[in-house]
């Protein structure tokens, strides 16, 4: 039971700390300490809420002050102008801030090429606009708002004690939310968005919805924090509330602690607030700011991922010898005789795709039969990968229809197509760089396949890791795999989604002959398990060996279709590959 005790120790310590902190105001300590600890709660809540979107999903917002400020002014306006009880205004503040974020998100997340800097700047600009509007309307009017007349509920013996306990409750709630998100389906999706949003979408993560949800949650918490902070501040001004440095401090605290970890921002916020306070109480407030600046520069240069990930990496290196999980190695069985039905699982009709003036697909018609291995070949630029991208929903169609198992999917978003049973691999492997091999595969099982419990998902992932020969690498990050392992990770991820239709984009390129033989055997085994496979490949030996039928694309059109050996001997096909004289 010693192991259990060691594992439960942090939990017990956390519970003890929560109880101790909750009863601290009863101890009648000087208000000075209460307000200092309140400030730590404040910054922990604010930076943790920031990280829900910006840290987890990687969309850095420089405008967190806007949502915080909306909360501050909601409470200020409702209590002073409408006489609403203070505690009632806090949820209203949260709701308004969340609504604002959802609105902004609904607009900006629609921009297909929204880059990180663009989001940072838009949120920054929104802060200035909101600040100006509040300044010039009766909400503030330029004179500031006094909160002194607003009654505080008597939760604690003293006023500062009450604010302290509210800040503490907010802080616990925020951390609990962050923990929950980090361990939920939402968090898994957000981490995937952080690493590679396009791939996340293709694996079934509803990226647009998740980003809005995270943004609203993040802003809502900031709004509630603002509502409470209004009482702490007492006299509210636009300049003080929407201070640019608020937005930047939140970023720096989170980055320092580790923005991708639920507890990271809390660590950063506590360290910086305590440090600043130490200098203030020592009468060196100004020097404190400079020291904090120096620490941050050093942290970003030497610990770009933050303190917590650095500690985790260090612990991991120490424990490297002990392997915790190991997937059973599933022998690749010789494929039984395939059963190909006449029913077509995929129907492509008159599909065209234009990029500006360039016509990548000029009306393609294809039928893929259930259970077959279907090769897609053609010279460079003939539209093979574009077709894969169109079927998987990465590119919207220009015209035409695509039907999967009788259902039209041509206009569905990529995550919906993934959920319906289409999985794909990428020519250049695109694993989620900050997730272990196990998490990479588990994510695809979670979002691609049917809904199952976490443990089932994990077993499913371990099964496919073993199937693709990656057993023993479960806890490794993708950077620790070589190219051929990363290619197989692509396969494991696609398989974990239990696809009806598997789209393979040049799985063999870059592999050596032995690895190619392995891969070919694996593809056969995959089909034997019941999937239909469409694969793009340049290595003709493999195409001829593997496919039941081959389609040749040329200049965006279907050029030839049939049994591989016949098609590749067709003089017309030879001529587009080698030039006319050679075919003759």
């Amino acid at each position, binding site marked *: 039971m010693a192991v259990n005790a060691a594992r439960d120790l942090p939990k017990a310590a956390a519970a003890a700390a929560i109880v101790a902190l909750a009863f601290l105001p009863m101890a009648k300590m000087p208000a000075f300490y209460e307000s200092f600890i309140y400030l730590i709660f404040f910054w922990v809540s604010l930076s943790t809420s920031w990280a829900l979107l910006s840290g987890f999903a990687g969309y850095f917002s420089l405008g967190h002050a806007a949502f915080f400020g909306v909360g501050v002014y909601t409470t200020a306006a409702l209590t002073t102008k409408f006489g609403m009880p203070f505690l009632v205004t806090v949820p209203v503040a949260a709701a308004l801030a969340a609504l604002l974020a959802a609105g902004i998100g609904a607009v900006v997340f629609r921009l297909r090429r929204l880059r990180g800097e663009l989001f940072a700047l838009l949120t920054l600009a929104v802060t200035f606009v909101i600040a100006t509007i509040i300044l010039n309307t009766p909400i503030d009017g330029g004179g500031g708002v006094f909160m002194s007349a607003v009654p505080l509920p008597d939760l604690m013996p003293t006023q500062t004690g009450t604010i302290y306990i509210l800040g503490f409750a907010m802080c616990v709630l925020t951390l609990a939310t962050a923990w929950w998100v980090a361990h939920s389906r939402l968090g898994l999706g957000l981490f995937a968005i952080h690493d590679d949003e396009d791939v996340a979408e293709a694996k079934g993560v509803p990226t647009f919805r998740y980003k809005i949800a995270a943004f609203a949650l993040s802003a809502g918490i900031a709004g509630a924090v603002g509502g409470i902070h209004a009482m702490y501040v007492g006299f509210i001004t636009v300049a003080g509330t929407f201070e640019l440095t608020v937005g930047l401090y939140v970023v720096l605290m989170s980055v320092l602690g580790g923005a991708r970890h639920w507890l990271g921002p809390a660590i950063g916020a506590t360290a910086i607030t305590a440090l600043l306070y130490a200098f203030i109480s020592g009468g060196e407030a100004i020097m404190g700011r400079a020291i904090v600046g120096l620490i941050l520069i050093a942290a970003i240069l030497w610990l770009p991922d933050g303190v917590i990930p650095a500690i985790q990496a260090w612990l991991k290196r120490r424990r490297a010898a002990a392997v915790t999980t190991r997937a059973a190695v599933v022998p690749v069985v010789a494929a039984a005789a395939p059963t190909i039905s006449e029913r077509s699982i995929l129907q492509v009709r008159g599909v065209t795709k234009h990029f500006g003036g360039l016509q990548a697909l000029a009306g393609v018609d294809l039928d893929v039969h259930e259970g077959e291995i279907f090769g897609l070949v053609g*010279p*460079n*630029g003939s539209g093979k990968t574009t077709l894969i991208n169109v079927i998987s929903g990465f590119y919207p169609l220009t015209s035409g229809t695509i039907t999967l198992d009788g259902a039209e999917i041509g206009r569905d978003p990529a995550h919906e197509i993934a959920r319906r049973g289409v999985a794909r691999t990428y020519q250049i492997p695109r694993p989620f760089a900050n997730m272990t091999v196990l998490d990479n595969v588990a994510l695809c099982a979670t979002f691609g396949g049917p809904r199952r419990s976490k443990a089932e998902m994990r077993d499913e992932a371990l099964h496919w890791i073993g199937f693709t020969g990656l057993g023993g690498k479960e806890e490794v990050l993708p950077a620790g795999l*070589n*190219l051929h392992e990363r290619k197989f990770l692509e396969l494991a991820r696609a398989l974990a989604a239990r696809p009806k239709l598997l789209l393979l984009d*040049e799985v063999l*390129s*870059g592999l*050596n*002959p032995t690895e190619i033989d392995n891969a070919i055997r694996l593809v056969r085994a995959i089909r034997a398990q019941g999937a239909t496979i469409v694969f793009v490949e*340049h*290595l*003709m*030996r*493999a*195409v*001829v*060996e593997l496919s039941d039928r081959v389609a040749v694309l040329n200049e965006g059109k279907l050029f030839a279709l049939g049994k*591989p*050996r016949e098609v*590749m*001997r067709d003089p017309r*096909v*030879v001529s587009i*590959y*080698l*030039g*006319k*004289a*050679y075919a003759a």
Partner: protein
Amino acid sequence: MLLEARNLHVGYGDATAIWDVSLDVDAGEIVSVIGPNGAGKTTLINAMAGLLRCRGGELSFDGADMTRVRAHDYCGHGIALVPEGRRLFVKMSVEENLELGCYLAAARAHRQESLERVYGLFPILRDKRRQLAGELSGGQQQMVAIGRALMARPRIVLFDEPSLGLAPTIVDDMFDIIARVRQDGAAVLLVEQNVLKALDVADRAYVLEQGRIVSTGLPTDLLQQPHIREAYLGV
């Protein structure tokens, strides 16, 4: 030999894409490297242009060891690249793209003369010289890419898939231009997936498959090999 590679190893990240490749180009020669897609042709040519570091082996140009030379000093030795996909500076004018070719002092001294030569080869570029390179058609962009290389007054021009994405008639023109480049005195190293064209224009050729040279010889001899049929068509 002008350009000489011995047992070259090149790769990206942890993937080695070129294994143990030996290849040479003599002054005034056109040498083609053919091979299927993914064979490592672009990796090979990028290493010869200094854009990728060699992991092992020797690379020398006109007797000088190139493996320790920094990327931006390759051009000064007389090596110019016509990259895959052209990679023009699309927000700059046609003439500015050409001028970048003669960025180094030695070539800059001949700017006017070189410009006249390029405009002589591609008269259409003279008319479009103030237009943004990104606004040109694919064929015209390829002309700019070749012109940019010629502006450097190179002793060897490295062509990477010059026919990619071009209409068939324009492909013919491109190969005529490659022959002209040699007439003007520069050697040519060409990688191409259009086998017939590449062999037609070349003095000698290499076949690259999965990062290794599998065959070499005169174009007429290579054309007879059943192996090439198999590599390209799998039958």
